[in-house]
């Protein structure tokens, strides 16, 4: 996982910085000076990182910060990671379709019922509390504008 993620990232930066350099060549000098001054060394360093990874895949270099826990490994970790991605993708889709207020209630209720396997009463009360907090702080107090979802638009609500 460690070397695979590193390789994907390194290769991604090679592609992005390469494309950035090619695009920048068409701009006037004032606009391209800085992107090229940064893009070229980044491209070279990314190439070095990819080659290092390919030639010495066993070499590890840990960053001095947060690390993913190793409590779940192999297939279980991959399955749970995909599940996390699915929750976030689902929440994003719900926000666009239903708008923030409904999507928040739906996420909290579904997450507690399906992922947390909590009962209906606990899930319902917790959902109500979270939604009330969201409504009070962000809507009533801060008056932040949250647009309605697409579904409300289709239904003419």
């Amino acid at each position, binding site marked *: 996982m*460690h*070397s695979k*993620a*590193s390789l994907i*990232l*390194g290769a*991604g*930066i090679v592609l992005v*910085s390469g494309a*950035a350099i090619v695009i920048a060549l068409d*701009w*006037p000098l*004032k*606009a391209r*000076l*800085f*992107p090229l001054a*940064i893009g070229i060394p*980044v491209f070279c*360093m*990314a190439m070095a*990182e990819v080659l*290092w990874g390919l030639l010495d895949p066993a*070499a590890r*270099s*840990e*960053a*001095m*910060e*947060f*690390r*993913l*826990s190793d*409590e*779940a490994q192999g297939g279980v*970790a991959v399955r*749970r*990671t995909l599940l*996390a991605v699915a*929750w*976030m993708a689902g*929440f*994003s889709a719900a*926000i666009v379709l239903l708008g*923030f207020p409904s999507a*928040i209630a739906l*996420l*909290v209720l579904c*997450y*507690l019922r399906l*992922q*947390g396997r*909590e009962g209906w009463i606990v899930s319902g009360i*917790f959902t109500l509390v*979270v939604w009330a907090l*969201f409504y009070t*702080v*962000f809507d009533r107090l*801060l008056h*932040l504008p949250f647009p309605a979802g697409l579904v409300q638009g289709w239904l003419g609500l």
Partner: protein
Amino acid sequence: MIDALLEGLLLVLQWKAFAFMLLGIALGFWVGLLPGLGGVTTLALMLPFIYAMSPVEGFAFLLGMHSVVATTGDITSVLFGIPGEGTTAATILDGHAMAKKGQAGRALGAALASSLVGALVGALALALAIPVVRPLVLAFGSPELFMIAIVGIAFIASLSAQGARGMLRGFLAGGLGLMVATIGQDPQAGVARYTFDSLYLWSGLDLVPVLIGIFAIPEIVDLIVRGGSIAGEMPGGRLNQGALEGVKDTFRHFWLTIRCSLIGTFIGIMPGLGGAVAQWLAYGHAVQSARTVEEREGFGKGDVRGVLGPGAANNSKEGGALIPTVAFGVPGSSSMAILLGGFFLLGLVPGPDMLTTHLAVTFSMVWTIVLSNVITVVACFLFLNHLARLTVVRGHFLVPVILVLVFIGSYTANNHYGDVVLMLFFGVVGYLMVAGGWPRAPFVLGLVLGKIVENNLYISVARYEFAWLTRPIVLVLLALAVAVILYPLIQARRSRSRSNAHA
């Protein structure tokens, strides 16, 4: 001078000014806690409300609010791994790691105590520096500001990972951050760079969704994968005792806290650098304070010094940033630019008048910073026990709440769905960086500094051609950057040869 100092205190303690300060503190407390809802935005939102206030009341309200935002922002960073404020992201690295080890109370205690020390140092600097700051600010032109930014990136890139490969990744991450910062309309020629005909990208990428994505998403995924609570199976223990331990840590590493406070104050004084830079430089300095390679390896895994450094710097910068704002009308940061607007709304003109005719008002600002931070830290300690217990709440109760905060925090940056997409994209980048063992701090610093570096480089070349490289302060800063890069390599080599000699 002493009379003006005392008069400033009495002005703040008048019941109306004090009440406005408390109101500001209450607002700043919640703004700091809520991710994505920035102190700068809130400062701008509150500006219209000061029309009817006197200058002292207006500044008590605005500064009371603004100077505590970073303090409570640290709480969100430590407990949930989400930056409560853009200026509190560095606290996540070790603060959240401590929370996961069951030391949330200690991390919070350290963050709060160092924040208080930082705020006091910043306020003291403001009080002392007003008469002597002019030559310092005038000595720093674009070449020097450019070099300070380079030293900052070199600091973080070389210190945030181990060995030569770690350093390569650090510089690569920093370079990537600088590259991402070039997205949007270029400031010199007006060319839309890497915008792909999208209006959303014209003004560049907003820092808040990028920060939330890169720091919060990997943590959330990990929490879901792990199951359980943030602190895992670690015993919660007596959390208020942990907080006391954090306070003691601040005094155990008192000189580090003071040095990081001074770094924050200095960065605050320099126009255009801002708090997001100060915290990372202070973190870099905290890492550099480790005497051995083994000690350094503890950073990022929950070393309390990684909390003390940024905690102190992101609060001391306020006092520092006020110095050029009050003395020359040159705002040190975007929040100070808004505060400058407050000066004019209240009928004051920054400059010599603030140091003579209105000296008591200037000192009332110093006292507002001091009092609001003391009140906030005391209030936080009263609720600390309950706050720290959030880390032992079961994960499936926390994940949806954190997800809601993450999505709202990103969306409210510009009220645009593009920010949510941006947050998710950088969430993937952040996850790959964490999974691959890449440091995220250099990327963020590169992103924060990108525009500053480009502007100052362009001005330096346009104004001095290549002669700017021979300016004395530039040469000193260049030597410092080289030393910062070489120091960890020399230290690692020494450590290797010492262990070889022992074997």
